[in-house]
């Protein structure tokens, strides 16, 4: 387990950033999310079959497996894009039935996508601002005049966004439209956007896909920092076993929609089922 942390999010004086991670009354190490016997199919294709696992508060949980193992589908179930035909997801102790993604977001689940899904027409700054949508509430009237509360709110959140920019060291591209950025930076901006929501649970879908070594190192450092400094629980999908071994506290392995192993990275690495699965589909 990475060092449990309490206290402030970023080193800033204005006390803006209430830590959503601590609001839910779940202590570090307790179950934050439990997937119980989840099954999902599209038409006749079974994407996920009877998968159950848990994510503990404060840990980095890796979900690995060969292509088509159902990893991304699992994330999509967790944040409400897909509704499983069977099984339940319990988040923060609450069993949930069908929810929409924006409801998952408001419960504190944020994520990044396998293929960067940024808002290409907007700048880095606006993209990260977009991550704070849920935290902004000023009504239409004030928005119309961009004065008073609406402006104050905008400024307040801009400040919070700047902290993330500082955290991710992307000052130089603050006002660049994200479409013009290289892939590695886009991934970083996407992480920034997810962080801006101050999630309790952060889902990262192959955060290092397509990156070079240096970018991977940077990204690993950011992920660890997010986990240790902000206390955010992280579930990540990753192909690079080296990265998983370095980052993850616990690993769950999927293959053909089924769970084949679950445990500490070192245990999983030695598991015969896992070795077979990976040998079968070389990476």
């Amino acid at each position: 387990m990475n060092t449990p942390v309490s206290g402030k999010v970023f080193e800033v004086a204005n006390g803006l950033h209430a830590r959503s991670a601590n609001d839910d009354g779940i202590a570090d190490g307790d179950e934050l999310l439990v997937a119980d016997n989840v099954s999902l199919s599209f038409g006749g294709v079974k994407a996920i079959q009877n998968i159950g696992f848990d994510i503990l508060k404060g840990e980095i949980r890796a979900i690995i497996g060969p292509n088509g193992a159902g990893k991304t589908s699992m994330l999509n179930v967790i944040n409400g894009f897909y509704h499983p035909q069977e099984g339940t997801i319990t988040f923060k102790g609450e069993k949930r039935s069908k929810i929409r993604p924006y409801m998952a977001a408001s419960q504190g689940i944020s994520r990044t996508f396998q293929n960067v899904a940024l808002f290409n027409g907007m700048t880095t700054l606006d993209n990260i601002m977009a991550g704070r949508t849920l935290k902004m509430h000023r009504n239409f009237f004030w928005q119309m005049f961009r004065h008073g509360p609406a402006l104050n709110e905008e400024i307040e959140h801009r400040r919070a966004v700047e902290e993330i920019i500082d955290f991710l060291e992307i000052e130089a591209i603050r006002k660049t439209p994200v479409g013009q950025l290289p892939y590695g930076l886009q991934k970083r901006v996407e992480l920034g956007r997810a962080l801006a929501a101050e999630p309790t649970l952060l889902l990262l879908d192959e955060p290092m896909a397509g990156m070079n070594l240096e970018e991977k190192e940077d990204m690993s450092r950011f992920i660890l920092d997010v986990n240790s400094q902000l206390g955010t629980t992280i579930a990540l999908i990753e192909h690079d076993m080296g990265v998983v071994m370095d980052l993850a506290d616990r690993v769950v392995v999927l293959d053909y929609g089924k769970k084949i192993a679950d445990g500490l990275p070192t245990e999983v690495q030695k598991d015969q089922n896992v070795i077979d699965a990976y040998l079968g589909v070389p990476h």
Partner: protein
Amino acid sequence: MFYREAGQYKTNYIADSAIFPILQDRIAIAGFLAIAFVIIPYFGNDFFINSMMIPFLIFSLAAIGLNILTGYTGQISLGTGAFMGVGAYACYKMTSIFPDVNIMIPIVLSGFFSAGVGMIFGLPSLRIKGFYLIVTTLAAQFFLEWCFIRVAWLYNYNDSGAIEVPQRELLGWIVTGASATPTTRYLVVLSVVVAMTWVASNIIHGRIGRSWMMIRDMDIAAELMGVRPLFAKLSAFAVSSFYCGVAGAMMVFFWLGAAEVESFDVNHSFLILFMVILGGLGSLLGSFLGAAFIWMLPIIIRAVPDIIGLNINAATVEHINFMIIGGLIIFFLIIEPHGLARLWAIAKQKLRVWPFPY
């Protein structure tokens, strides 16, 4: 070349996120406003004001409305003409029912009627996208057109089937009806357009505008960030229709003086859409540029044969105009899908980095 940005540093976020952060831009805007409010009323002749400036401004406002929906939220609409009609008829009914109320009140309120109708026809946008939405908005267009003809109550059971604008005063000035001078009407229209442009710009740069753009750029990610598609899309429909409605009301009250259903037909929807495409999707400035271009082009095309001494009949000019506009739409979509506004932005960027190429 004109930009001297060195030394313009921002010490707070309000200044940094200002809509015109560069001093020279603010000066230019002030200059344009001065020309619009002072020079044009003072020097412009009636033809210029009545046939060019007033319709240009009104169409700009409608184009802003459509741009909010199409350019900022990514929802395409072919019902703009009808939504303008809703505003016009609503305004007409209100002035008939409450003749003593200050004319600006029904003008603005008419936008709310339009917004309401827009939201109803926007409802299907929650389930459908793209081309499907075209059909929805066409449904609105044709259904509303039918209403404008068949619901005689809307035009006070006139035999002509047209709505005619009564004379109304504002602060002692006659602003509508036959005796209102073009300059007066122009100034009223200009004030409304400037104010509403400012409001539109505020909304777009705020949380709500951002949620529209999120939906436009990547609706899945937007939902994940907590944007409720229902709210974002309907609010875009509402605001968009509001702008179109006010534009429609002003079109009748401050420009045409009288109108029938033809003023709000599907061709007007196309006209506004062309303004938005040529001007630039997702740009307020583009709405103005597009309106100016589409509106002024025929006038220029009509004038050109005269100037060079050719005698071409009006119908031919009209046809050529169609061809040119159609051709330009395709040309722009190929060469610069972001329209005149992007060309402007590129030119501005060139000026900012002058004499360097980048």
